[in-house]
């Protein structure tokens, strides 16, 4: 083949194409150039991976590690007849509590729930909380705890002679299930998790139908050449790049102030938390909904545009109406793409802090949200608040809360991906 083509080609292209030897060299050079680019791209990927690794390391490093605890009263002193505190029966525990705290506090506990109805674990917890009163004296990072263990113990012995040091995971089941508290050892993120879930649910309910609807209209019905439609399209693209805090201002002006009657729930005849003044979950959800609406619309349009034109024609050719083509062919074909866009947008919404600060998320709230009209906090706000505290141990709490946020985010994404894959499979099989 090569021999056969060599002669005539050489004659025809004489003076234009390089000779074989030069051509061979040039191919080498061209290949090398391509190889250099491949290496550059690989380096780009590696730096991304390194950045991500550093981030994860930083978070995990702070979430676990040794802590030095100083107890007001050593639990060993509370042991009765040599039986340690955590093995005592409930009656003895109640008596210990009674002798160690004030009468007023005891009465308050009795009023909250009579001691006869409280469980042994509950009383035990109260003793730890009010009698033992552990305080964090110092914390160490995970890296220090593993690689400089002896130094940690020496330091603790030197600076905090009364303390005892143990390895603590700041991310515990208690951390997830407990409400916010000013005591770092007892603080939890349950309120923030519920707040985040409520807000995201409202965000999705608001922005998904409206976003997909707008995308369908813009792609399928709107006359693309018309000036008004071009204007709208350009502005949607611009809106996607507007800083999120500006959406916060918008939410504050519209949802919190103007629509206070609705967002505070007072139109429901005292159905809501009247002290919230519109700074409620629904205001936050709608604000974040506005924030991600342009993203959902743009992604939806791309997905709809990606449905092959031949499918639409096939539908029309059978005498289907425009709506039948959209409903039976365009939407099922576009759904995986629409869902991917929504996943990305919701991931952004769940991590947003700035607009929620403006809209008025509570920074300290120990009561679970009970509906769209209650006050709320969300995980990013909680993290932000903890990182701005002066005490070190709140930084550990923030790191643990970041882990919770990441897990929440990943599980939301995973469920959306599963949903999308099911769509894909249905498309292929049925």
């Amino acid at each position, binding site marked *: 083949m090569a021999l056969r083509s060599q002669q005539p080609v050489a004659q025809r292209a004489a003076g234009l194409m390089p000779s074989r030897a030069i051509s061979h060299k040039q191919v080498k050079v061209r290949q090398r150039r391509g190889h250099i680019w491949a290496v550059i791209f690989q380096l780009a990927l590696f730096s991304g991976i390194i950045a991500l690794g550093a981030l994860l390391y930083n978070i995990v490093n702070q979430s676990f590690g040794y802590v030095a605890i100083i107890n007001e009263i050593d639990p060993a002193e509370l042991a009765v007849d040599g039986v340690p505190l955590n093995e005592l029966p409930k009656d003895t525990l109640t008596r210990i509590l009674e002798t160690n705290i004030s009468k007023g506090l005891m009465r308050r506990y009795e009023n909250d729930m009579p001691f006869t109805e409280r469980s042994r674990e509950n009383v035990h917890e109260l003793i730890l909380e009010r009698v033992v009163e552990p305080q964090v004296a110092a914390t160490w990072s995970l890296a220090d705890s593993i690689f400089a263990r002896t130094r940690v113990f020496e330091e603790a012995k030197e600076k905090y002679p009364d303390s005892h040091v143990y390895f603590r995971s700041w991310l515990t089941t208690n951390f997830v299930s407990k409400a916010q508290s000013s005591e770092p050892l007892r603080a939890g993120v349950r309120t923030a998790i519920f707040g985040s879930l409520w807000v995201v649910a409202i965000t999705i309910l608001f922005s998904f139908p409206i976003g997909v609807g707008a995308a369908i209209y813009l792609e399928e019905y709107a*006359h*693309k*050449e018309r000036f008004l439609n071009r204007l709208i399209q350009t502005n949607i693209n611009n809106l996607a790049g507007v800083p999120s805090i500006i959406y916060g201002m918008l939410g504050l002006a519209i949802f919190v102030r103007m629509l206070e009657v609705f967002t505070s729930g007072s139109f429901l005849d005292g159905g809501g938390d009247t002290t919230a003044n519109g700074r409620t979950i629904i205001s936050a959800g709608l604000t974040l909904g506005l924030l991600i609406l342009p993203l959902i619309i743009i992604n939806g349009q791309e997905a709809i545009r990606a449905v*092959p034109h*031949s*499918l*639409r*024609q*096939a*539908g*029309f*050719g*059978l*005498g*289907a*109406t425009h709506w*039948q083509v959209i409903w*039976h*062919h365009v939407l099922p*074909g576009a759904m995986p793409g629409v869902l991917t866009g929504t996943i990305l947008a919701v991931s952004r919404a769940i991590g947003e802090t700035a607009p929620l600060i403006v809209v008025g998320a509570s920074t300290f709230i120990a009561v679970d949200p009970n509906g769209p009209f209650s006050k709320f906090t969300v995980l990013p706000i909680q993290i932000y608040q903890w990182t701005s505290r002066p005490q070190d141990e709140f930084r550990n709490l923030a790191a643990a809360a970041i882990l919770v946020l990441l897990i929440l985010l990943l599980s939301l994404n995973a469920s959306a991906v599963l949903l999308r894959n099911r769509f894909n499979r249905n*498309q*292929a*099989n*049925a």
Partner: protein
Amino acid sequence: MSIAIERPLRTEEGPNAASQNGMNRYAIEVGAMNVFYGDFCAVRDVSMQAPTNKITAIIGPSGCGKSTVLRCFNRMNDLISSVRIEGKVLFQGQNIYDVSVDPVEVRRRIGMVFQKPNPFPKTIYENVAWGTRINGFKGDMDELVERALRAAALWDEVKDKLQQSALGLSGGQQQRLCIARAIAVEPEIILMDEPASALDPIATLRIEDLMKELSEQYTIIVVTHNMQQAARVSDYTAFFNVDDNRTGYLIEFDDTEKIFTNPSQKSTEDYITGRFG
């Protein structure tokens, strides 16, 4: 193959309808039709008549507007917003471009098969059933699907995998599925836009045989690049050419035999003998 179709004729037949004993001699009559894309005239002054239950082929060089003309016959060009059509296209005496005519009904009665096989990403069964279902079919769907697939000479190949995805079929099978899908809604005319150009010679022959069979029941208008194909299958042939302004126009329309053996125009002869351009 026995497809008994009751075809209710339109009641509002125009005075120009060339009806003989209730049956139109021509399925489509085109009179002085011009097609514009924006300001650009794509096809000018087309007048032709496609006889009922015959195969009419449209041939011509690339860019002469064959497909554009074909798509005018069932208002497929409506989907492109810049297209404007002048003149008249009579279907059973009714101008399908009248304001009172709904393009959805036109497309339901004048089916179309496209150049590239485009089955829906659904099951084979659903591909055939969908068109009839959205048109309000209430009868025995299984029977209808079988009938349509048999008519498209595909039944024996797919009867055991009706519930599998249509995308698993070969290109030729997919195209026959598209034909089955088109005839399932029982149209009166089937338009075919280069139906075999994406297929190998064997699959092409099968499609051609199928077209001949279907022409007993349906009027077929087929656009093709392949002159042998036009000569093999069609009863009538329209030859289009393109002028210096890139505007297509009809050179001549006649019996296929006459076009291929004794064309009245020089350019037709040049084209079919390969001396063109």
